[in-house]
């Protein structure tokens, strides 16, 4: 049985301009020790889909899904009390801005302890012991002293480590990291990503890494989901994705990376913009910007096809010859 099973998840927002579909028919399935990376540009729905899973969206959002199961339990129908028992304990999440994710009024120790008390019911002494253990685990020097520190006394990298310690406090089965390194400096960024991957191996949990940084994906993930305008356009193994992207969007996105075009005068770009609420094309959402568009692309929406070379939402996936696969 898989740990997480999502079928046809959609999220719609009520906005001034009408209904905006932020996530459109996402399917995901995750096993116990998977490391899945979701990449996409801003507004592609990568964070919103995971927030929907956590039940953390504002009231203007309307979440629908055929199936949203965690360990066989349907997250859509259980009561919010039941849901809170799972969220934060079995599924936890870390966010992009470590500095604002911690409450500035309380010490680090208190904030980690809160989670432990709430979900595990540990007493004071056990909490303190566990806190020190956790800080040690996430590589914070002199953990005992750090427990008394307030968030403003910590740097960004330290705060993110604390956030990770809080997230893994209850030994979650699934950790969702939403752009965990984006707000940090390059050298610190590398430390945090390494830490997450190490923890994942050590704890045997599943890790979902949401990012827009292709470099991070290439160096860490195993499975990659590419999202565009709320839809999942491609899913492949990481090496295959970078070597042989099947969806034209993935292909164009990878070509736009500066390091892939060092020999060219100009960087290849994707013309146009991501479709918004008012101008969704009738067919494939990428069709107006796609260089391989044919007639059928403009008429009907491709569905996500599962094939032995990966999954993609495209009528005319890019073919490669000469690759030995």
């Amino acid at each position: 049985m898989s740990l997480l099973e999502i079928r046809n998840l959609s999220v719609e927002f009520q906005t001034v301009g009408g209904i905006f579909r932020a996530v459109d028919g996402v399917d995901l399935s995750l096993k116990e020790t998977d490391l899945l990376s979701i990449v996409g540009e801003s507004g592609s729905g990568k964070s919103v889909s995971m927030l929907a899973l956590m039940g953390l969206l504002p009231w203007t959002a309307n979440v629908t899904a055929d199936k949203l199961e965690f360990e066989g339990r349907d997250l859509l129908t259980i009561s919010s009390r039941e849901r809170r028992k799972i969220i934060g304990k079995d599924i936890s999440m870390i966010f992009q801005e470590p500095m604002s994710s911690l409450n500035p009024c309380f010490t680090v120790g208190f904030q980690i302890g809160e989670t432990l008390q709430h979900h595990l019911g540990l007493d004071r002494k056990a909490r303190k012991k566990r806190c020190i253990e956790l800080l040690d685990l996430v590589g914070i020097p002199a953990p005992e002293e750090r427990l008394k520190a307030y968030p403003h006394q910590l740097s960004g990298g330290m705060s993110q480590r604390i956030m990770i310690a809080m997230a893994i406090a209850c030994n979650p089965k699934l950790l969702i990291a939403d752009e965990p390194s984006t707000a940090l400096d390059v050298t610190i960024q590398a430390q945090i990503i390494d830490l997450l991957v190490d923890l994942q191996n050590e704890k045997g949990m599943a890790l979902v890494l949401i990012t827009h940084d292709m470099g991070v994906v290439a160096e860490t993930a195993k499975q990659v989901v590419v999202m565009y305008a709320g839809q999942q356009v491609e899913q492949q193994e990481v090496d295959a994705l970078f070597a042989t992207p099947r969806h034209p969007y993935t292909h164009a996105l990878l070509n736009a990376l500066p390091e892939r075009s060092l020999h060219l005068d100009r960087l290849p770009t994707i013309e146009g913009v991501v479709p918004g609420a008012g101008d969704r094309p009738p067919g494939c959402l990428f069709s107006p910007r796609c260089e391989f568009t044919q007639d059928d692309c403009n008429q009907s929406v491709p569905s996500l096809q599962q094939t032995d070379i990966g999954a993609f939402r495209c009528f005319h996936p890019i073919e490669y010859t000469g690759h030995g696969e």
Partner: protein
Amino acid sequence: MSNGTVDAVPAETRRPSALRQNLKEFWFYFSESKTAVIGLAFLVGIILMALTADFIAPHDPAEQYRECLEQPPTWGADKCNFILGTDYVGRDMLSRIIYGTRLSLVAGGMVVVLCLSIGIVFGVVAGYFRGWVDIAIMRIMDTILSVPGLLMALVLVAILGPGLLNAMIAISITYLPHFVRLTRSSYITESSKEYVIASKVSGAGMFRIMFITILPNCMAPLIVQATLSFSTAILDTAALGFLGMGAQPPAPEWGTLIAENRDLMLSAPWTVTFPGLAILLAVLAINLMGDGLRDALDPKMKRS
């Protein structure tokens, strides 16, 4: 993310009229609060009443009907038919209240205009120069704040002499610190934004930076503050009137109405009840609307 969802709409599909777009968005947030809409509707009603007082008031507010002294509210009687009754010299209470609306709205409006114009100048100057200019302005404002508002107004009116105009000036001075502080704080927040540096790099001078570049971006909280001050100004004008330091009889200012009928509180309670109700309803309506305005204009509270 919240920003991204709205911004994902490409510019091409937007209506070109920014004003209409802004108004539409404003109304979307404002109309979310039913009470705010009710407040706005009531306020519009009050303003219309003030404007058309000459036509809708059944009687002249100063005319004394000597045969109908202290007449209780009556409907459809042949003689002495005054819906809200008359006062001790036989003046129609309804007409006096309707005409009083004008005085109250003018008082509120004047106070707000005075406070906004002076407060913005002081606040922007303090925010721009910082240093000792800032310290001097802010300490003066703190001094004004440290005296209870109504007491301060009373002292000022005692110096300037009673009357509606002087009452308005006195009240403006007591409200001024709020406006200065608000302008200064939002000015300082805005002045660290990059568009200001960009303006400086383009060579913009002091006045341009102060009033053209930054000030328009500080207006939202000021508008909210102005609305809420409008209602408190009405209240304080009434209070000064009641204490005999505001509008002088026979001006039908609401507070003055209560004051001149104070002795009749037991024998003719309608003469104080209805002006009191008028004050209550007007202030309530403006406050409700002000809350709605704050929700709609304060970007921090914006959802979706």
